[in-house]
């Protein structure tokens, strides 16, 4: 099939005419744009769990709001609802049954949003901005875990105003991930703690960081039996570490790889090293996606240790990403992440959330 100069209807969402010269750098990948994006940088994205039909996307932003869109099968996005905090929203998550959304904000509170009634109630309180929020569903208990810059990790039963448990961390919480029965929290000063959640949450191990720079994002991956077995940790230095909790051969199994860096071969100019803003694992293939301050996303196969794809460069950093529950959709947000300081912040610049078909591009590479 000839690709050039023919209207083949290529691409998703775009006009799809190959050979079109209008490359708008805000969407060079020609992915589907989500309608009514937030007015300020998007800090987090989360798709609804498989327990509820359809795909609903939640996005929290620095405009203090949390928005919900329905993503239809034809790619159309319909804004559904919105809630507010009094401070920027830093993290969001869904309950396991898909009926509630939990939101964490700089206003030091976390809220539970009942989507059916469209009501929110406050369920958590910290002494500093809450950076991470995750829903934990254990056989014998359920709760919300919040990690804050006040150096505590608290667990909340949504019915009670006092935390069920409060664990002290060595430093401010920067990112976390939960896949029962494991939770990983990365803190400031390159702290890294793994918690085990069976019976009740408790600290399992403090790990010496495999990275040499500030931790920025973390995502747990599972083994073939769908048991959490390790995590990917991203830093501000364009590097991701793949770390197994109990590998047969740590020296060989654990590794790091560089990503989100500029002009590799052009040795005349210094290489720009960008932060890895988020990591997401494909729920089916186990391959991972990373998004960075350089405005690109990349797909990787950690088992074959290869890169699967890197996108074109967007004109803004990519601040958040996530896969939907069956791995068909990859959502990523394009907005300013402060990586170049406040001078480069333009409140007028539009923020975007893009959706991309992820069914094919994230298939693992066969090991040679």
């Amino acid at each position, binding site marked *: 099939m000839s690709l050039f100069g023919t209207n083949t209807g290529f691409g998703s969402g775009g006009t799809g005419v190959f050979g079109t010269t209008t490359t708008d750098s805000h969407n060079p990948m020609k992915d589907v744009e989500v309608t009514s994006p937030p*007015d300020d940088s998007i800090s987090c994205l989360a798709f609804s769990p498989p327990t509820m039909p359809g795909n609903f996307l939640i996005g929290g932003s620095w405009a203090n709001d949390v928005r919900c869109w329905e993503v239809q099968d034809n790619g159309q996005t319909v804004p559904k609802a919105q809630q507010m905090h009094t401070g920027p929203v830093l993290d969001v998550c869904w309950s396991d049954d898909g009926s509630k959304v939990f939101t964490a904000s700089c206003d030091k509170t976390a809220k539970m949003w009942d989507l059916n009634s469209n009501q929110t109630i406050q369920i958590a309180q910290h002494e500093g901005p809450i950076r991470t929020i995750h829903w934990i569903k254990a056989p014998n208990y359920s709760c919300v875990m919040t990690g804050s810059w006040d150096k505590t990790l608290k667990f909340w039963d949504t019915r009670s105003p006092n935390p069920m448990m409060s664990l002290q961390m060595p430093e401010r919480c920067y990112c976390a991930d939960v896949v029962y029965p494991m939770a990983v929290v990365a803190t400031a000063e390159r702290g890294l703690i793994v918690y085990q959640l069976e019976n009740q949450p408790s600290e399992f191990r403090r790990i010496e960081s495999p990275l040499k720079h500030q931790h920025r994002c973390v995502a747990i991956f599972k083994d073939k039996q769908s048991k959490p077995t390790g995590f990917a940790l991203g830093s501000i230095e364009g590097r991701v570490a793949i*770390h197994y909790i109990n590998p047969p051969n740590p020296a060989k199994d654990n590794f790091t790889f560089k990503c989100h860096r500029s002009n590799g071969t052009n040795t005349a100019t210094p290489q720009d*090293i960008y932060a890895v803003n988020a990591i997401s694992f494909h729920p089916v293939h186990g391959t991972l996606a990373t998004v960075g301050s350089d405005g690109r996303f990349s797909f990787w196969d950690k088992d074959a240790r290869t890169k699967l794809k890197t996108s074109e460069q967007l004109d803004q950093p990519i601040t958040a990403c996530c896969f939907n529950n069956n791995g068909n959709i990859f959502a990523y947000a394009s907005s300013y992440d402060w990586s170049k300081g406040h001078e480069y912040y333009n409140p007028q610049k539009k923020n975007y959330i893009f959706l991309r078909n992820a069914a094919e591009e994230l298939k693992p590479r066969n090991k040679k």
Partner: protein
Amino acid sequence: MGRKKKKQMKPWCWYCNRDFDDEKILIQHQKAKHFKCHICHKKLYTGPGLAIHCMQVHKETIDGVPNAIPGRTDIELEIYGMEGIPEKDMEERRRVLEQKTQENQKKKQQDDSDEDDDDEEPGPSFQQPATTIQPQAAYAPMTQPGMAPVPAPGMPPGSYSGMPPMMPGVPPMMPGMPPVMPGMPPGMMAMSRMMPPTHGMPPMMPGMPPGIPPPMGHHPGIPHMAQAPPAATRPAVPATTVSTPQPSISKPLFPSAGQMGTRAPSTSSGSSSLDSLSASSKPLSQVQQAASGVAVSSTAPPSAAPKPTFPAYTQSSATAAANTSSAVAKPGTSVTSKPATLTTTSATSKLIHPDEDVSLEELRAQLPRYQCKIPSSGQAHITSPPVAAMGGVMPPQQGVPAQQPGVRHPMQGPYGAPPQGVPGYVPGGMPPYGQAPPMVPPYQAAPPRPAIGMRPPVMSPGGRY
């Protein structure tokens, strides 16, 4: 210089004029660089073998040996290691080597006298040639015991500022090396290590010098050169070595047990560069291109030759260099246990991040525009921004009026408990709500604070948003 044993000179590659310490390593190099099929990456043993493979398997013809210098691309010459090299080329090589040795010696004498004459220290650049030339001349005996003296000259204080503290004398340049010359035996690097400071043409490394940062991490490999393992992992060298900086930086210089192949990193994670490893899939352009670039231009010393290592790193591999430099700068600049340095900037890389100690979100959250709105007298101000934003943006919303009547905070009483957690809001929020005594403060963070249920009628949520 050479060991003066094998054929009166060190094994060298006829295709690209590079020198190697050991013939085994030379052969690995040839297999990886010259006898490797560009289509399926299969490594053959000879040039003709490669030609036949391409013809039979891929139905393609090749014109010449890949990565060979002009004049040495003959695909039909059966050369394996040092065998098969035409006699006239051997002689030519010997002559060239002798010339170079003489040149170096002369230069050394010159530099020596320069130093003597000057009252002040001319600087690291001058010191280097002097000190390094000596090891050069005495290279043969020094190869192994050379490890010791090598670090000394190799540590030009000027060029590696910050590094010495890191490694016992040897900057972690190594990472840069392998990527540049996959297949180059560590010994090669050790030799060239002394080269960099030399501005001229180090006898055996035409074109190498600039691209050869002191291969510190690989020193352990040098004594073990004879061993097969490094050879076996040669193709993976770029990958393994590129990542070496990580472990080697944190460990002492010669993890002899580690070597290139086994590389037992001190940190809990073994590291290998995923980028460069992907030879079969998306190729990591940096490594391979840089490597082939150097290989091809073997005779032309890159312009970075006179400068100390940094440019060399850049040339060898941006990734490794960046890796190195950022790693290097860290130990150099931060004396504290954790690398709490500011943006790492070096000649080769730049971290696009304002401050290492604080996260981007923390920086941003400090701005006044992002301070949490206190619903004190600010009922008005709380409402306005959201209303404006929402009204304009989300017209199709169903059931989510800006006012959000649903936002209520029923748990007033209990939430009064952790008031200590919200001191920040007290000043602003308290006075107006004098009436709502203890309940209010806890809800500072919550928008409809006034409507805290203590007196819903008073602060009608209607006006909230």
